[in-house]
């Protein structure tokens, strides 16, 4: 070939492509793959998928039936004297700002100027806004410039309406704040319809005192405002002050939390545990199996005997002991569950390495001058990857199942003291809350989600295994 031939090279079909095609033909496996991918996406993008903050408790709507849509009405904070409550770290809504609105009534002497200062650096401004959605007993009759007339149970009142932003440190000397109710005996009640903006990751704490009296407001433990007042009603609102609407597709639990949202975040937890524990088992198993297969001989027999012995143990018992002894930190669980699964992986890898070792193309590579490292990286590893991938896909659902099992028994994993609510934990909650059978959705939906996920992953794994079956290599 002395001249350059403009030859067109026919593209070949690698074994991966072959296997992929075969996989596509297996309908159940394809369905399984789609479902799994979908769930994985949901788990990753949980924040954006979720309609409602899963930790948001709506105590008015305990045990909400599936399919409800409602305004989030002002909630009363059910609290005991002296207790403090806080809203959890505001991490769930993507954009980073949340608005809370509460009516605060403050007694002040008539005509006194009011101070409102922001003492926390994190609060950049406090907005006094119009009252747009009013309590039922109050009605806006007329607007006259910057004054509005309200009618309420005790008559009519004309008040100044303010829409003002107050910057940090500014003193409000000459503000008359809108009033909603009459003063009594020379002291006026000042009602602030206060909308507070808090940035992500802040903790809003309403300091309460007996019978739900809001005394103070703290953001990240810095006191922002203190009140001497009566009045409560805290409500999360949209930016314009209007209340949200919550759609509860799958119902609500004992604390009024949306089940769908909890399931979505449960997906994240379950998948996370599944993947990490599988990775742990992968590292141990692949290394162990590869060494055993590669070295062979007595070392191999010994290593495999160990595996055989360990195989005979009912693992869950040890895991339970482990978790009860060392605490329920999620990292313990990663290791415990990974330690259960590595045996199978080791066996598989060892088998593959053994059979590969005898293959003539390995000898050919050596005859071509390839050393151990070359053969390892160029031949052994690529040919083992297929098998590893298949069994990884089958291990993940197994781990998820085991984790659910443990959660069910009360050993759900924790992170920094907070329980991580995986599907298993949710199922357990469902059983606890079953009562006399009327709260069926709390059990059925988590259970079904779990079952469907496991199904799908198992079908996918089985399909992959068939697709990579060496007997079918080369055939379409």
């Amino acid at each position, binding site marked *: *070939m002395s001249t350059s*031939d403009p*030859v*067109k*090279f*026919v*593209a*070949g*079909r*690698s*074994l991966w492509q*072959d296997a992929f095609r075969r996989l596509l033909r297996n309908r159940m496996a394809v369905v399984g793959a789609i479902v799994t991918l979908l769930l994985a996406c949901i788990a990753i993008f949980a924040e954006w998928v979720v309609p409602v903050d899963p930790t948001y408790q709506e105590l008015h709507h305990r045990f909400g039936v599936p399919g409800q849509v409602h305004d989030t009405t002002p909630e009363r904070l059910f609290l005991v004297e002296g207790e403090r409550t806080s809203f959890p770290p505001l991490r769930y809504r993507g954009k980073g700002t949340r608005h809370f609105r509460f009516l605060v009534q403050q007694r002040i002497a008539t005509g006194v100027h009011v101070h409102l200062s922001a003492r926390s650096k994190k609060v950049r401004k406090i907005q006094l806004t119009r009252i747009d959605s009013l309590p039922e007993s109050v009605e806006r009759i007329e607007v006259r410039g910057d004054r509005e007339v309200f009618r309420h149970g005790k008559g009519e009142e004309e008040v100044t309406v303010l829409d003002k932003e107050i910057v940090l440190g500014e003193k409000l000397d000459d503000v008359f704040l809108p009033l909603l109710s009459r003063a009594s005996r020379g002291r006026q009640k000042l009602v602030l319809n206060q909308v507070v903006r808090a940035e992500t990751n802040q903790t809003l704490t309403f300091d309460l005192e007996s019978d739900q009296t809001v005394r103070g407001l703290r953001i990240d433990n810095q006191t922002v405002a203190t009140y001497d007042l009566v009045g409560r009603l805290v409500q999360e609102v949209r930016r314009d002050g209007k209340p949200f609407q919550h759609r509860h597709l799958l119902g609500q639990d004992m604390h009024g939390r949306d089940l769908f949202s909890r399931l979505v975040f449960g997906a994240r937890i379950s998948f996370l545990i599944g993947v990490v524990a599988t990775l742990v088992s992968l590292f141990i198993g692949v290394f162990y199996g590869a060494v055993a297969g590669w070295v062979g*001989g*007595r070392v191999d*027999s010994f290593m495999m005997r160990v595996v055989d012995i360990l195989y005979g143990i009912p693992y869950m018992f040890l895991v339970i002991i482990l978790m009860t002894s060392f605490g329920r930190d999620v990292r313990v669980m990663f290791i415990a569950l990974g330690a259960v699964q590595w045996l199978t992986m080791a066996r598989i890898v060892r088998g593959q390495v053994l059979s590969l070792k005898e*293959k*003539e*193309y390995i*000898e*050919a*590579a*050596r*005859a*071509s*001058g*390839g050393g151990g490292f*070359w053969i390892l990286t*160029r*031949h052994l590893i*690529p*040919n083992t990857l297929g098998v590893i991938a298949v069994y990884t896909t089958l291990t993940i659902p197994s781990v998820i199942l085991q984790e659910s099992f443990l959660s069910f028994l009360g050993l759900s994993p924790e992170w920094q003291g907070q329980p991580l609510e995986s599907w298993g934990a949710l199922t357990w909650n469902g059983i606890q809350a079953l009562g006399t059978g009327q709260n069926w959705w709390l059990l059925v939906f988590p259970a079904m989600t779990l079952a469907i996920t496991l199904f799908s992953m198992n079908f996918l794994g089985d399909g992959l295994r068939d697709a990579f079956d060496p007997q079918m*290599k*080369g055939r379409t």
Partner: protein
Amino acid sequence: MNPEKSSPLLRVRGLKKHFPVHEGLFRRQTEWVRAVDGVSFDLYSGTTLGLVGESGCGKSTLARLILRLLEPTEGQVEFEGVDVSGVSMREFRSVRKDMQIVFQDPHASLDPRMTVESIISEPLRIFGLNQRKERRWRVLELMDLVGLDPAFLKRYPHEFSGGQRQRIGIARALALEPKMIVCDEPVSALDVSIQSQILNLLEELQERLGLTYLFIAHDLAVVRHISDIVAVMYLGRIVEMATASKLYESPQHPYTQALLSAVPIPDPEIERKRKRILLEGALPSPRQFHPGCSFASRCPVVDASCRSTPQTLREVTESHRVACHLVKTS
């Protein structure tokens, strides 16, 4: 047909390979498997030495010993006058280029995950020769040499037929321009019609490139066609070695005779008159140690002394050696 050089390209002396056998609960070593039990021969440049024998007689092990894919238990291998069996692997590496191998199984000898291009160019890559473009040139050259359509460069082994895969294997063996190629039953796994194609290819390449072959097979007809000298192996030892024509026309060793009697001759008249020598008994286990002739248990003309007297290859006529003390020297 005659040796062109006075010193052989490859010289094997007393090569032995014994595998230890581990048995029992603790894998104690109980016995040895004598796969190759003292083999010696010379191979001259440009010629083909055919090696025949039943399955399990040690031919493939011998092939691997020569290429140092296995380490010999005893014995020596000399290539171009240099001892290559005792040196370190690093030193041996430079000799690797000169001796290559073609395998029997066209399926297992090619990595299913590599393209044809990768497979053939692998030796080139390992030895650090050539840039990618040069490598590709060389690969296309080789493909042309073995009769493969260059358009298939990017294809994968499973997309080829058995015969084509063997061509790929041959191309790979030729990549480093070796002087000697060990062919380990290269056509045994192929259809009969394809066998002749590949054999012709091998012969053609030998002439064009001046190659030396060690051709291993169990099919006598195939070996006869391609070899200059033929050696017959039984249980790890060479029992007869002669030029092809002499061996086939007048086999001396009882084993060779039995083998040849089983090969059908296309002339029905002669075929009818021939007597088949049937061997009694089964192939003895290579674990057993035979102080005398290893063939004694099945030999139709065995006598008392056969089992105890060690047999060596003696020259009975010119360039015809036999390891049987019952054969008279002329």
